[in-house]
């Protein structure tokens, strides 16, 4: 068997046939976390990329086997920490599906609004980080200006800025803050006014376009085969939006378009995310004024027990399809739980997308994959 520690030792020397093996990571500015890529280079050209994972693996799946159905939600906030609301929502949906819990309309509305806000926040962070990968520092601050408003809203509502744990089986943990609607509307106005700045600074920049167009191309066929989901697959022309295909909560009541580009390159992935932010705004606008009055949480038992059987739910996080597969024996804890994280599949396509291109292209490709390492490592 191939030995990982050997690889790291090897890299002090040149590889075979004059190849250069570089360890990108675990600490590297472009991996945004502790991802370790062993990159084989021929000059500046990438021959092979091998991801090595596990630097922050916490075996959440094993942990969940000894946590109850109320507790395991908190762990999922720590997986894809940029979509923690949506992860929580997936867990809540799973328990609700298993136990047939009725969720009040009010909670459904708020859940969707929060999911979309989370999506915008995540895409904002991605936009800034990706531009920074390509050497443009300024968009980072512009993106964070808007993201900050969202985190403030989240903080007011849930008490947390990153790991929310606000959505519980049956609805929400607390009712929303009285200022919630006002603040969200203020955010929408601000976002709409400022979104043109991204267009000017990033989208229409000729250097940005030449760095991303035709870079890291993923065909629709490969995208499906690699199990890519979310903006990565949609940029390749694969329709895979869970919100459209298998609507949950009130997604079937709102009007929005599934953003699909066909080029499959980094620029297409960029465009998908930027347009998705606008669609999210559209969804929020439709819901924010019509949040019904009523309970914020349905009636649930104190001890949640899923019936014996297997359950699978999926939600659309900012990175793609997040699936939870639970095998229950009828007890208070799951027998086996599997998180199907979008980043894991997206990462597996990296070698295919970046091999043969330059190191600089790797940054564009990896940046537009939008990898969140705890999501991959779990």
């Amino acid at each position, binding site marked *: 068997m191939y030995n990982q520690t050997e690889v790291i030792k090897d890299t002090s020397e040149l590889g075979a046939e004059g190849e250069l093996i570089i360890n990108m990571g675990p600490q590297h500015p472009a991996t945004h976390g502790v991802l370790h890529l062993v990159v084989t280079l021929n000059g500046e050209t990438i021959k092979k990329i091998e991801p090595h994972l596990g630097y922050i693996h916490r075996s959440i799946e094993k942990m969940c086997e000894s*946590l109850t159905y109320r507790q395991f939600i908190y762990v999922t906030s720590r997986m894809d920490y940029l979509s923690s609301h949506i992860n929580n929502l997936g867990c809540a949906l799973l328990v609700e599906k298993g136990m047939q819990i009725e969720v009040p309309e009010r909670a459904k509305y708020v859940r969707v609004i929060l999911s979309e806000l989370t999506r915008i926040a995540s895409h904002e962070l991605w936009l800034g980080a990706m531009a920074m990968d390509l050497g443009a520092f300024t968009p980072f601050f512009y993106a964070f200006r808007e993201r900050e408003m969202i985190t403030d809203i989240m903080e007011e509502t849930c008490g947390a800025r990153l790991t929310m744990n606000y959505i519980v089986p049956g609805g929400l943990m607390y009712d929303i803050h009285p200022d919630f609607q006002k603040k969200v509307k203020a955010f929408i106005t601000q976002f709409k006014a400022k979104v043109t700045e991204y267009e000017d600074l990033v989208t229409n920049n000729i250097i940005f376009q030449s760095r991303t167009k035709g870079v890291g191309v993923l065909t629709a066929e490969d995208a499906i085969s690699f199990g890519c989901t979310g903006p990565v697959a949609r940029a390749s022309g694969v329709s895979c939006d869970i919100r459209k295909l298998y609507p949950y909560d009130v997604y079937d009541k709102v009007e929005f378009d599934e953003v699909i580009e066909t080029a499959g390159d980094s620029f297409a992935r960029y465009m998908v995310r930027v347009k998705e932010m606008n669609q999210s705004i559209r969804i929020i606008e439709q819901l924010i004024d019509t949040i019904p009055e009523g309970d914020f949480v349905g009636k649930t038992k104190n001890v949640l027990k899923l019936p014996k059987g297997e359950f699978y739910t999926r939600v659309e996080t900012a990175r793609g399809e997040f699936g939870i597969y639970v095998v229950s024996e009828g007890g208070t804890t799951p027998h086996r739980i*599997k998180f199907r994280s979008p980043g894991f599949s997206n990462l597996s396509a990296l070698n295919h997308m970046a091999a043969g291109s330059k190191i600089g292209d790797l940054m564009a490709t990896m940046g537009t994959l939008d990898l969140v390492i705890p999501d991959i490592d779990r």
Partner: protein
Amino acid sequence: MTNEEIKEYIPSIAPNAILDETGEWLNITIEPSELKSFATALKEGKLQMNYLFCVTCVDWKTHLTMVYHLSATTHRQSIVVKANVNREAPEIETLSGLWKTANFLEREVFEMFGVNFLNHPDLRKLILEDDFKGYPLRKDFEDPINMIKL
């Protein structure tokens, strides 16, 4: 394509398969030795199951069950394929030739459950250290130092 049609179609490609409809999706349990040919038929045949979205394994203490969640981007029907493998020396054919995503997902199962995927192009540890002993997601895995029992 409806669930009924899938149910009628399955026996034509895998006569020994056991169908189970209790869950949300159609569960098909087959012999590990038939997995590869069955999967090929699912992908290339009438069902066009081109999207493998989840590969995992469940430890039942007596045996391991490989679970494959499959879907098609054309008709959007999902099915679950299961194969029970021996717990002592688990071995199953790899599907990474059919779905590229299986490459990484199977590597994860390999190190977490110790299932040996035959003909896998690159079967080595992805997450754990090389000298890690044991299979963490199996039910009998014990690590007195790092594991906290609740």
